[in-house]
């Protein structure tokens, strides 16, 4: 049987509007990367291309190719517009 992990995804700005969620917990297959999680999300929500986004795992910037571990907090970061 395929092994799975649970992660939380936090949404901000346009992604929060698109998903209508601040955060959600999902179950995915073990070995998934940030990129593959996003590919799953765009089958559910109307989201922009991942090339426009940065990725943070557990409150640190990370590569979209990073493998996600059980219990990780994942955030996809739209282009920032502070100031």
């Amino acid at each position, binding site marked *: 049987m395929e092994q799975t992990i649970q992660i939380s995804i*936090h949404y*901000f*700005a*346009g992604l*929060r*509007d698109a998903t209508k969620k601040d955060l959600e917990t999902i179950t995915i297959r073990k070995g998934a990367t940030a990129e593959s999680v996003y590919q799953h999300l765009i089958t559910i929500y109307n989201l922009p291309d991942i090339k426009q986004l940065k990725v*943070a795992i557990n*409150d*640190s*910037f990370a590569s979209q190719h990073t493998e996600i571990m059980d219990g990780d907090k994942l*955030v996809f*970061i*739209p*282009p*920032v*517009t*502070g*100031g």
Partner: protein
Amino acid sequence: MSNFFITQEVINLNLIVTENPDHQSGAKSVFEGIVRDCNLGKSVTSLEYQCYEELAVKEGSLIIGEALSKFDINYAYCVHRIGLLNVGDTAVTVLVYAGHRDDSFKACRFIIDEVKTRVPIWKKELYVSGKSDWLQGAG
């Protein structure tokens, strides 16, 4: 201790520690980013700022540290407000003390430029028309 802060309160420059911290500084530079009433031809009534606070504080603190390393300055501070802001409200304040004006100006400019491109804060413009839009990329 980090000198980068996120707040939901009104930023009042008078409440920020503005006293020359070491009396070694002959220059103090302050930048304030203020909500204006128009952008790209649209009339703006207010801005909503949203923030990924854990990473914003981490990245903002890195920027303050970089400014202290890169420039000959004695003190650097930045606070960014989030939530709903009205036209005329201060959204961000940068404060730098240095021995001389040149590095004081440069460090102040460096901090606000880096904050606008690196710190995960987003603003949504609310227009007179009733519509609203998340801005795309640092302006």
